[in-house]
């Protein structure tokens, strides 16, 4: 319902699409975030069934801020450890139904 609102997607643009960081800096080779904690979700939130299982995480950015996000391209949970270094990637988060807009966001992968 409300997740289909283009106005809502537009309002969140800066925080979700760039984490409030200049994209040139965000996607530069030097940008590294740190894994604080994570969970592999087997019982998904409604709307995320196709992605299941998926990883959510809290990561620390170089400026000290901590954000909630998803981890992608994880081959095995064994590869993850607290303190692991991560790189941001721009990914689709979900589609709000067939007539809804596609929501994008910044996810992270092991660097």
């Amino acid at each position, binding site marked *: 319902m409300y997740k289909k609102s283009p106005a809502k997607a537009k309002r969140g643009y800066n925080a979700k699409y760039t984490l409030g960081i200049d994209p040139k800096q965000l996607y530069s080779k030097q940008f590294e975030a740190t894994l*604080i904690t994570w969970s592999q979700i087997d019982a998904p939130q409604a709307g995320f069934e196709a992605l299941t299982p998926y990883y959510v995480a809290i990561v620390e950015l170089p400026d000290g801020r901590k*954000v909630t996000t998803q981890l992608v391209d994880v081959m095995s949970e064994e590869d993850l450890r*607290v303190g692991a270094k991560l790189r941001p990637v721009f990914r689709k988060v979900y589609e709000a139904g067939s007539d809804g807009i596609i929501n994008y966001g910044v996810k992270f992968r092991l660097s």
Partner: protein
Amino acid sequence: MKVYINGLGITQFGDLWGEDLRTLSEKAANAAIADSGIDKTDIDAIYVANMAGGEFGGQAHLGALIADSLKLKVPALRVEGACASGSLAINLARIAVLSGVYKNVLVVGVEKMSDINANEAGKVLASAADEERESFYGVTFPSLYAMITRAHMHRYQSKREDLALVSVKNHHHGVLNPKAQFRKEISVESVLSAPDVASPLGLFDCSPLSDGAAAVIISANKTAKSYAEVVASEIATSSLALSDREDITTLDCVKSAANKAYTFAGISADDIAVAEVHDCFSIAEVLAYEDLGFAKRGEGHLLAREGATYYNARRPVNTSGGLKACGHPVAATGIKQAIEVCLQLTGKAEGRQVEGKLQYALTHNVGGSGATSVINIFKHV
């Protein structure tokens, strides 16, 4: 001025397919009124705790709904603070009575969750997290507490087996509580081999989806029916998003609310004879031990390992079965907690009664991943 709990009413908790919001709240409210011995017309106001009647079943405006079903035309309103709604309503009723405006407030907590499927219900519950910055990424409540669990395990070497012991203990208590949703013993092995929900938490680390209602009469009058005096009720809040907390191995709002409540009541953690805590997930009970001062920082899981929180051990916690076994009809939980400690303080917790002369009891009710916390302290009268 003092404030008392004068009547208790509670329905069965569980998958109650034959019941709806109206019948559940009516049963609990009528039971509380009958138990208090007061006339229905002596009720000055109705405070209804409910998280999401609109989202779970299309019904909002619960103040009027319940007043109507009781054929009362008194002031009635709904209180919402996610899973802490029940204790919030008690807090507000206490303030209303202290103010002198009302003498008797009927507080009803109710949730009807089984009319939609589990994923949809999970989405409704996820609305208690930060929608823009957590739920957006598919975060579920189990996964938020799972991330807390991993941080606690990493820092304090707590083990999944320790957490499993919390669920095992609460199921043991659930067997002894006729109102509980799950009246069945479980073992550490069954907890560890249960289906994955959000690693490292499995199904038996999680409280269930439940239907149920609970009600109490908060009153200015001490009567022969008074169960307890409400000696302190403190609310504290913290960041809505877990990631905004400096330290995610503790719930800072619980610590501050508990410290304020202990100070207000003039007691310390060691004076609490019995407590009901918000074990929405097994790790949450471990954090409660630490944040309430029952265990040192980083040693909550050792209390579980010791078995110290069984009803017949040195530090009884969740004699009702907790959220895990008694069930968690979200906004009814805080009221149920108050009912359980009232039964304990008056020696009426049949089959699971804590021995000795119990003076003080505490309830710990948490909303979200620790964004709202309400600590209520009750005293024997």
